[in-house]
């Protein structure tokens, strides 16, 4: 491991340790809720970052995997009376399989054609769940009340257990991203982002690398989806499969900074409290004032900080540095050289 990687790992460990203390500082249920949502969305962002941040394949369809995860956990208890953890595992495998199946046709497309295709896949899965009677279609599933405990994945007396589960999930997602991004595989993905032809020329199989990245990303997303279902205890297709979920994942990662392990955390830590607190403050009016403000703020951030928040942080840290990260620069030069010689 290089020096940067060690530094990043230590910083991550410190961040997670700090997170473990954070929920203990307050007894406010709203604050706990916001912390849980930040962590769940940050984990989704990390998962999405693998396929889009590293491999450069913009996915607008991650709600599909999120929803499969949510339904897996809910159905496990609702239909079969087994612990949601089994549902979580089954759903993660199912998401991975779905990702593998759709990846084959979808990864033949490039750029925007790929992005639109992922959106189409997401919408198809959404529509199928709305029409599918066995999973209660559009009515959704209300997860039956069970005794509290880790086995049933239900806690009513306090939100703290959920907060710690969310922290564990975030640690999982962040470390998966950290190890992937620092591994040989991560550099292969970056090479593909730079230029698929050049990556092939140096002996990388883009098809296999992209497929692996997608499967990994889908399984992680699905696990977070399962936890979300157990947290809210009621799901329907419109909640978990809609484009809005896919877009929220995209938004917070882009807002925080694409391709960095810190991006999703930063983005979620800004976006989620904004959306939750504007909802708490203005949501009662029932006329969408919270979303007007939320939308306006997104526009403002995009206009005045186009590099994402991480760009701002980097600029503050190194006032004179006007370059991207070293590793990224290397890959780009290499691919440019390969393209010229080809």
């Amino acid at each position: 491991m290089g020096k940067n990687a060690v530094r990043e790992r230590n910083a991550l460990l410190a961040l997670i340790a700090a997170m473990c203390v954070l929920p203990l500082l307050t007894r406010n249920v709203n604050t706990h809720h916001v912390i849980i949502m930040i962590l769940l969305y940050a984990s989704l962002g990390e998962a999405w970052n693998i396929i889009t941040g590293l491999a450069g394949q913009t996915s607008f369809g991650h709600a599909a995997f999120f929803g499969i995860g949510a339904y897996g956990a809910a159905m496990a208890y609702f239909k079969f009376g087994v612990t949601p953890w089994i549902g979580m595992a089954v759903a993660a495998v199912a998401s991975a399989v779905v990702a593998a199946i759709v990846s084959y046709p979808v990864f033949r497309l490039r750029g925007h054609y790929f992005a639109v295709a992922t959106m189409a896949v997401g919408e198809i899965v959404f529509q199928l769940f709305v029409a599918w009677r066995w999973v209660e279609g559009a009515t959704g599933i209300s997860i039956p009340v069970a005794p509290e405990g880790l086995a049933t994945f239900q806690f009513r007396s306090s939100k703290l257990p959920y907060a710690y589960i969310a922290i564990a999930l975030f640690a999982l997602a962040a470390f998966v991203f950290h190890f992937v991004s620092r591994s040989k595989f991560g550099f292969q993905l970056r090479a593909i982002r730079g230029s698929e032809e050049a990556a092939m020329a140096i002996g990388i199989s883009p098809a296999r690398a992209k497929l692996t990245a997608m499967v990994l990303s889908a399984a992680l997303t699905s696990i977070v989806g399962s936890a979300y279902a157990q947290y809210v205890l009621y799901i329907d297709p419109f909640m978990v499969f809609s484009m809005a979920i896919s877009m929220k994942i995209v938004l917070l990662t882009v807002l925080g900074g694409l391709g960095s392990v810190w991006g999703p955390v930063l983005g979620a830590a800004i976006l989620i409290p904004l959306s939750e607190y504007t909802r708490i403050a203005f949501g009662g009016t029932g006329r969408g004032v919270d979303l007007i403000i939320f939308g306006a703020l997104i526009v403002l951030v995009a206009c005045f900080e186009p590099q994402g928040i991480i760009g701002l942080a980097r600029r503050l840290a190194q006032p004179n540095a006007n370059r991207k990260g070293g590793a990224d620069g290397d890959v780009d030069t290499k691919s440019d050289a390969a393209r010229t010689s080809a």
Partner: protein
Amino acid sequence: MGCVYGLVAVGLGLIWGVMDVINFAHGEFLMLSMYSAYWMYTLFRIDPLLSWPIETALIFLLGYATYKLIIKRVVNAPGLTALLATYGLSLMLRNLAQFAWSANYKYLPDTFLANKRLLMGPLIIGWPQLAAAAGSILMSVAVFNFVGRTRMGRAMQATALDRSAAQLMGIDSESVYAFTFGIGGACVGVAGALLATFFPVYPESGAIYSTLAFVIVALGGFGNIRGALPAGIIMGLAETLGGFYLGTEYKYTIVFLIYLLVMQLRPKGLFGW
């Protein structure tokens, strides 16, 4: 329906092709145009068939202003930032509409063409739908001619191909971009006015058009706005026939499946290169 989809997609595709910006607020522009047609009729008794130039002008200005105020700042930013901005804008516009006019469905039940039907043997076609189809085709053709024949249109093409080369030739890419956004808006301005005659007006009414327009633009192929019209007609037919034979709950599934299947054969869209 297909023709209207086509026109909405032409507008989206024009912006996407020339500026490489995905306008997520496109459906909301459509929704605003439908509202303005609604209010024109409700307040001033101007039938949408006559008021469409007003809606078109309004949405043209909205598009122009959107470019000048927002898009201008993000058009050179890395890939997904422009998307962030337009998504924020769409959220804002949709909820502003809800704030101002509530989420209730609004209908225009007694416009000139309302409930008039054309009987052609076993086929029953509503006149409002027919007018919408005809208007959409006319507007699309007008846009194609504008882009192909006029000075501004050629400047758009040049800027789309290579912005810096176009600038070296003395083309003011700023005003080209602003104009492109305006024309893209004008397309949904017309579409909105025509849709308001037979489609309920509500804050979310543009949303499904947005999603479909993405798929249609991609199906037609980027960089070829002429592809969007036939692609829109194909998707409209697929939706209607699929909905009829397999049940309405599957109609969008069919549409998206067709996109995925066609892309296997033509990975750059039907008419793209």
